[in-house]
């Protein structure tokens, strides 16, 4: 079921009526059934996967909490992680590793054709496996108490607003909120509705309007001029941002209406002055997950500079692989790891350079923000391209500057529309650094009504309703 599909808009009022009239375990049960229905709409068979992960992690969490023996606790933790990563690995990476292994063998002259297995990638598997893993690790580390209620734990794993594309909500954030019946309040409903409306603008107006332009360029890079490809790459940066930030905001807004608070998942990432800041602003729930459960577990920056660079690289390579089973994602992760490591090396010199020339840090923003954005866009090419060859071709053709005439750009009117949308979004995001829109909306609630009317008009006029799936579903 897609947030931007008709079925969801039939489902959500029915769910909401039941949810708001029930209390306690009945409400949890409705949440669970609703979440399972939501997921089954795509493919009911994979419900068993969610149930398996739920049961195994629930039981292993109980086992960890029930014993003080360190070895046994570690054994249960490892078992849980192996089950979660095993399931993720089988469904997501089997064909990737088989294919890579075959190619490796052929490089050394051994021809071995295994073919690929017919494995369907379950929607949202990367999200819910990471979510359940965080629970068991936190219980193991004593950061949160074990959850005794299977029903509550099942709702934590499968809660539909964030089930298929995040945000990855930590057990320590969500489970305590499931202990009481969250009140359905008008103010929360209105605030949630405004977030959902803005999420739809990001998805249906920004991301889906840019999708056609981006697809036309990435599907046939050879037929496009340098300028056309450049436009495609820049637009993809905004497409993926609108798509994923939009989904996250809809999920967070829905949860807010139902009484739950999830953290912010995106915070104007393209205004970052460094790559570490970018990762504090982009897909915050994943980057903080990777930081807390992978980077810090590897030693973080506590074991000297070389180990820090290696840890950054490992974290980002695995972060890239988390997004998709392809070498292009690995390259994307590698480049981000490289940027982060280089940033650590260069930044002391850069600060000295600013001090010597007495350049105020604010002035360096003018240079840094576009620079970081540009490098991020170049890196997105590997993320979006169908193959490594395509990614190189795109970058090569852009570098040629062979035809910079706007006349040779296809879909001119859509491109102009895309630019207007991107510029509008940029202006709104810049203004939000100076204007606290949330505070204004709280002080003058009638503005929320005007905002919703405005959003409906913008969506009506500029929204794209092709039932485009969210990009992050494939991860």
């Amino acid at each position: 079921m897609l947030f931007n599909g008709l079925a969801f808009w039939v489902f959500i009022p029915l769910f909401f009526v039941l949810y708001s009239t029930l209390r306690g375990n009945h409400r949890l049960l409705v949440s669970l059934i609703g979440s399972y229905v939501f997921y089954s709409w795509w493919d009911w068979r994979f419900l068993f996967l969610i149930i398996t992960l739920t049961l195994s992690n629930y039981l292993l969490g109980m086992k960890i909490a029930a014993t003080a023996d360190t070895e046994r606790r570690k054994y249960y933790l490892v078992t849980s992680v192996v089950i979660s990563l095993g399931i993720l690995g089988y469904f997501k990476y089997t064909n990737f590793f088989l294919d890579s292994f075959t190619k490796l063998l052929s490089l050394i002259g051994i021809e071995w054709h295994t073919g690929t297995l017919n494995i369907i990638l379950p929607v949202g598997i990367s999200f819910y496996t990471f979510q359940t893993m965080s629970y068991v690790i936190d219980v193991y580390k004593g950061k949160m108490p074990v959850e005794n209620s299977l029903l509550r734990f099942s709702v934590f794993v499968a809660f539909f607003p964030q089930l298929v594309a995040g945000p990855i909500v930590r057990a320590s954030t969500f489970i305590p909120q499931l202990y009481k019946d969250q009140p359905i309040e008008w103010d929360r409903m209105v605030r949630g509705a405004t977030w959902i409306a803005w999420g739809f603008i990001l998805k249906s107006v920004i991301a889906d309007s840019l999708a056609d332009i981006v697809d036309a360029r990435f599907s046939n890079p050879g037929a496009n001029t340098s300028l056309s490809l450049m436009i495609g790459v820049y637009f993809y940066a905004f497409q993926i941002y609108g798509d994923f930030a939009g989904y996250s905001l809809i999920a967070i807004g829905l949860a807010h209406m139902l009484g739950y608070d999830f953290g912010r998942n995106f915070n104007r990432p393209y205004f970052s002055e460094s790559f570490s800041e970018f990762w504090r602003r982009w897909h915050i729930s994943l980057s903080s997950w990777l930081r807390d459960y992978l980077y810090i577990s590897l030693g973080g920056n506590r074991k000297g500079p070389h180990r820090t660079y290696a840890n950054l690289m490992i974290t980002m390579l695995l972060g890239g692989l988390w997004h998709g089973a392809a070498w292009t994602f690995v390259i994307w992760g590698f480049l981000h790891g490289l940027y982060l490591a280089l940033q650590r090396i260069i930044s002391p010199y850069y600060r000295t350079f600013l001090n010597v020339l007495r350049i105020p840090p604010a002035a360096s923003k003018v240079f840094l923000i576009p620079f970081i954005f540009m490098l991020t866009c170049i890196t997105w090419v590997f993320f979006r391209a169908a193959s490594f060859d395509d990614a190189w071709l795109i970058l090569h053709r852009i570098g040629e500057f062979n035809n910079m005439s706007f006349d040779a750009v296809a879909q001119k009117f859509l491109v102009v529309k895309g630019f207007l949308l991107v510029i509008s979004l940029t202006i709104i995001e810049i203004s939000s650094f100076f204007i606290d829109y949330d505070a204004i909306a709280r002080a003058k609630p009638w503005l929320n009504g005007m905002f919703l009317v405005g959003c409906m008009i913008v969506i009506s006029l500029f929204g794209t309703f092709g039932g485009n799936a969210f990009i992050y579903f494939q991860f």
Partner: protein
Amino acid sequence: MRSFISNFDGHERTFYRALHHLAMLVLVLFSFFIVDRLLDICFSRLTMQSQIRFSRLYSGAIDADILVLGNSRGVNSIYTPDVENRLGMKTFNLSYNGMGIVLAQSIFEDYLENNPAPSLLVIEATNINVDSKLINNLKLYTHYSHRLKELFRTEYPREYAACQLSRLYCYNSEFFLRVLYFIDKNDQTWINRHKVDPGFVSSYMPGPQSGQMFAQISPSKLNALLNIIDLAHKNSVEVRILIGPFLPKHILHIPQFSTWKQKLSEALPTGYKIWDYSTAITSNIAFADPVHLNYEGSRMLLNMLLGDGFFTTTVAGM
């Protein structure tokens, strides 16, 4: 008694709060409805003021001797200002990117209803296998044409319903941006101006989907073409069926094309022929891409058409 009163007050407060919230919801929806309708009025006026081809059609502002119908190949094959200069006949190109023959039939019928009949109708025939998806772009004209409205309802029932809910949705298309762009500009000078990249041509081979376009002719689409010819005949309009040039490297690698052309030729009423220029131009500089001419190409084609007597109407369209 006291608890009964406080209980009653509590219920009353809850009731009024719910009523207040309901009123807020209704107000938001009502405000949207009002703004939606007001903007619809503004946008429909802008649409009819625009100089874009279909706005001129529905405002009855066209008085052409030669009318051209087709898809993007029609747009880029016949450059009307040059035709007018060379022939001294008023020419209007009603072709549009992605316009299939079924939609073209409705457009032609609407044209005859709103404007004087031309003396010659040119149909770029490769649009015969194109579907009517363009109607989603032209939905803003459903206010002015019952034919387009019906086609839109059939092709896009959900979008049609959305247009009933929100009139603004009718303006949600790339076409409306063009309407605004051509608000005070003539769109008849719209043609590809760029040239295909020679490097691209040297390595170009048409994909299998290019051949599918010519795999067969659907009876309903063929029927639409015959209806146009029949309607033109009834209105004393001569008809030329044209196949504009392709990049030879494209069309010569599509084996289905010759069979398709033969079938189309056989289906035409007696005496009508296809004016086939599919391989007439070989120079790369005449093309914007493998299937579209550019301005240079349209000039080359025009010279050929004039030399072949394509626009001469004394031969009764045959």
